[in-house]
């Protein structure tokens, strides 16, 4: 597991059934591109988050393939429909095989 990786998500606590909500996510990760060299001129190996998914009660909201051109501390913003009360699950996949996840519950107003 890469050091200092910490997911953050911003989801409203409540919504009306059928509402559209904006979700913001960010994970602290250096996203080493594989293009940089260290002081001795050796290429620093690529080490990135390569995929992100967001699901709600088992249905997919968005599935993103991330490449080395995504900035350090990958940020993603998108919109979801909330058909009912439930839980969003956010998952980040690291090149090194680590999987980071976090979840947020949302209630219906």
């Amino acid at each position, binding site marked *: 597991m890469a050091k200092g990786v910490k997911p953050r998500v911003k989801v409203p606590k409540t919504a009306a059934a059928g509402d*559209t*909500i904006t979700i913001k996510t960010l994970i602290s990760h250096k996203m080493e*591109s594989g*293009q940089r060299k260290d002081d001795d001129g050796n290429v620093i190996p690529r080490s990135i988050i390569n995929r992100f998914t*967001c*699901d*709600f009660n088992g*249905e*997919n*909201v*968005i*599935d*993103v*393939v*991330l*490449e*080395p*051109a*995504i*900035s*350090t501390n*990958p*940020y*993603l*913003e*998108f*919109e*979801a*429909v909330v*058909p009912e009360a439930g839980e969003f699950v956010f998952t980040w996949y690291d090149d090194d095989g680590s999987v980071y996840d976090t979840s947020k519950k949302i209630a219906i107003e």
Partner: protein
Amino acid sequence: MELTRRNAILMGAGAVLIAGVPLKVAAAAGADEIAAFTGGAEIGAGDIKLIAPEIAENGNTVPIEVSSDTAVEILVLALGNPTPPVATFKFGKLSASRAASTRIRLAGTQEVVAIAKLADGSFVQDTSTVKVTIGGCGG
């Protein structure tokens, strides 16, 4: 500038650089990725919008947004990067809009391309040129 022999040579060399390099890049960059995404289908214009700043203060963190009404999948490429692919967004059943924002790295001033696969199976694209300044004094 005085037009000396030396300067004339320099200007000539500059002209070759300006004329030659972008053409070469435009022909090759991203072609494989685009072919893999579209399966060789023709790419038109239409229901896809790419929003990127005209000038980025630093190429390390450039905010972009893609949006479409009917896309099922959107591929983003930065044609001037050492490796052009940036991200592929696949929209699921519960996505409220076919739109997403992120922050990307651009190796220099270049064209960013978003190609959308629409629900009817057709492909459309939008491009945006981002000028990247080497801003920010060292520190």
